[in-house]
């Protein structure tokens, strides 16, 4: 049932490998940071090697206990979470987690978060020396911590600074993960491009909240949380479309993917790869179904490589309408 097996079975295969700048993935499907632990939690349900890459939970220099419960609640077609960057901290990560991560049969992307530019630099310096890491994903957009986090992600100058600091410390491919909680995502994309990012990933969660009407208080211990899941997909696709127009960097698109059609939507909008987050909660087999569906789609539509899909809805539209890339 693995895509590779399928490919052989069906003869003429569709090329699933994608190159995003310096990051080559055997297929374009990545587990989204924070939703897939440290890679193994789901292995009974979905083989680790299924994934093109796995982005592990965001790491900070110091260990963090995260926010008080409740940390999540459901909203219509969405998940609202306020985990608050619970993680073992850099030292423990290097000691107890990274060795096991190195053995995973997939590209390991380490997601990093900080509360100052120095935090990010420290993380990049330290992780940049380690073997077995395919890329660093700079989370400048986590909305669940009271200070830092979101600020970097919503201010173009700070975003650029953070990315530049990471860039200086490592030769690993640098993925800048953008927050959707901004007026103009293109401005942020240009800022991280200037900062030296190799790849842009988006979107992180939308800032939201939910109130328990019987108790007359916010549901989440942290009051606010980040909204993910199918509910946010239209916003995410729009932002991928916009960023594809604004910068030349490859894009990892995410937000609400629960099936291959959703993944194709992101690719056609401009993404070179996609991440699946909340979709795993709904069904751990989503990545398998996405890969199978992607292959079938390419075959039906006559594409020999998934890379051909990237931005196709934009280029075909431009060809059809001469509207070029005008904002809708």
């Amino acid at each position: 049932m693995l895509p590779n097996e399928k490919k052989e079975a069906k003869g003429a295969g569709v090329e699933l490998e994608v190159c995003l700048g310096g990051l080559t993935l055997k297929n374009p499907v990545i587990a989204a940071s924070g939703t897939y632990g440290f890679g193994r939690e789901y292995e009974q349900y979905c083989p680790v090697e299924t994934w093109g890459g796995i982005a592990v939970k965001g790491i900070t220099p110091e260990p963090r206990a995260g926010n008080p419960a409740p940390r999540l609640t459901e909203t219509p077609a969405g998940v609202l979470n306020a985990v608050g960057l619970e993680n073992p901290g850099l030292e423990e990560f290097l000691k107890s987690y990274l060795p096991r991560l190195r053995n995973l049969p997939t590209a390991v992307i380490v997601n990093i978060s900080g509360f100052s530019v120095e935090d990010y630099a420290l993380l990049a310096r330290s992780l940049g020396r380690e073997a077995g890491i395919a890329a660093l994903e700079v989370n400048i957009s986590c909305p669940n911590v009271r200070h830092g986090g979101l600020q970097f992600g919503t201010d173009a100058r700070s975003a650029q600074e953070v990315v530049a600091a990471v860039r200086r410390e490592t030769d690993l491919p640098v993925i800048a993960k953008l927050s959707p909680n901004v007026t103009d995502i293109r401005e942020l994309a240009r800022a991280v491009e200037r900062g030296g990012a190799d790849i842009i990933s988006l979107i992180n969660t939308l800032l939201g909240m939910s109130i328990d009407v019987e108790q007359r208080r916010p549901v989440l211990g942290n009051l606010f949380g980040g909204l993910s899941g199918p509910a946010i997909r239209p916003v995410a696709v729009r932002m991928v479309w916009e960023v594809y127009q604004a910068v030349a960097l490859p894009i990892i698109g995410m937000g609400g993917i629960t099936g291959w059609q959703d993944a194709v939507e992101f690719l056609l909008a401009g993404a070179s790869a996609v991440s699946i987050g909340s979709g795993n909660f709904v069904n751990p087999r989503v990545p398998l179904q996405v890969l199978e569906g992607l292959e079938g789609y390419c075959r039906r539509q006559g594409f020999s490589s998934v890379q051909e899909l990237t931005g196709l809805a934009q280029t075909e539209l431009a060809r059809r309408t001469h509207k070029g890339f005008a904002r809708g």
Partner: protein
Amino acid sequence: MPLCYEEIVSHGSLGDPAEGLRRLVLRGSAAATARPGQFLHVRVSDRLEPLLRRPLSIAAIDRAREEVTVLYRVRGRGTEALAQRQPGERLDVLGPLGNGFSLPEKGELWLVAGGIGIFPLYALAQAGLARGLEVRLFWGGESRGFLESAGLGQWSDLRIPLHLSTMDGSLGDKGAVTVPLGGYLKLNQTGPAKESQAARRGRSAEEARAAGSRRSAPGVEATEAEAAGVEALEAEVAGVESAGGKRSAGGCPAGQPPRDLSWAVCGPRGMMQAVAELGVARGFRVEVSLEERMACGVGACLGCCVTVRDERGRRSKRKVCQDGPVFPGREVVWDVTE
């Protein structure tokens, strides 16, 4: 294979439909490895709203028939959607998940339940009895109607001592399950000497009943307190106890709770806290089954974490889905703001 499509063997109301309780029997691979206290993470429908799976405890396990039973209350959108699923359909289920209760090797096992917290305890009672443990149930619910709907009959069939309470006093003691539990404990600690005094202070009927049943064959004589209106209880519950036959009449070593005593507790958070504090203070091995909202169910999202403390009081986080849902009562930090 812990990700499976279990076949719905039967699905319908449990007891009075007005109570909104449902019984769901699934046939498939989950039964092979399921342990009491574990749960299934159920995709209630193939729609995107409700989106997330719902954790539901395994209430009974029948390995021979490859069946597990899940009992639930229709509460919100997830359980409403689940309630519409029909026998013959297949249900997308992760599990069995979580650690489950630890089944003591020997000694006595007290089950303490509040409301639908009773559901996961049935499988544990079965397992405990199969191992030859002395099993005793303390259970508080809204009303007699609720308890009867939620499986009182089946519990009676187990022939173990039942200590019941209801918020409206319609069966057993009036009040939460801490009333019969606390009463029974106190009697066992203070001994018969103080009993009449306790009765005079207006202690609960269950407490009195328990005392009565310790004194003599149960259900024979009522104290003053019992006379107040617990005939029904006496007839039903004490009857069950006397019929239980597993234990010597009186049900409990006089003057002291049994030395090798384990508690398994499930119910609303406040109730579990109260019960755990009672038991931990007395040095019993207390296990509580915590509830948190869950996304992944497998330890990947950190959405269900709670704070625990070790012997030295150091705080750390545990995942209810993976490290729990069952935790030692002494480790749980009940203050939610931590």
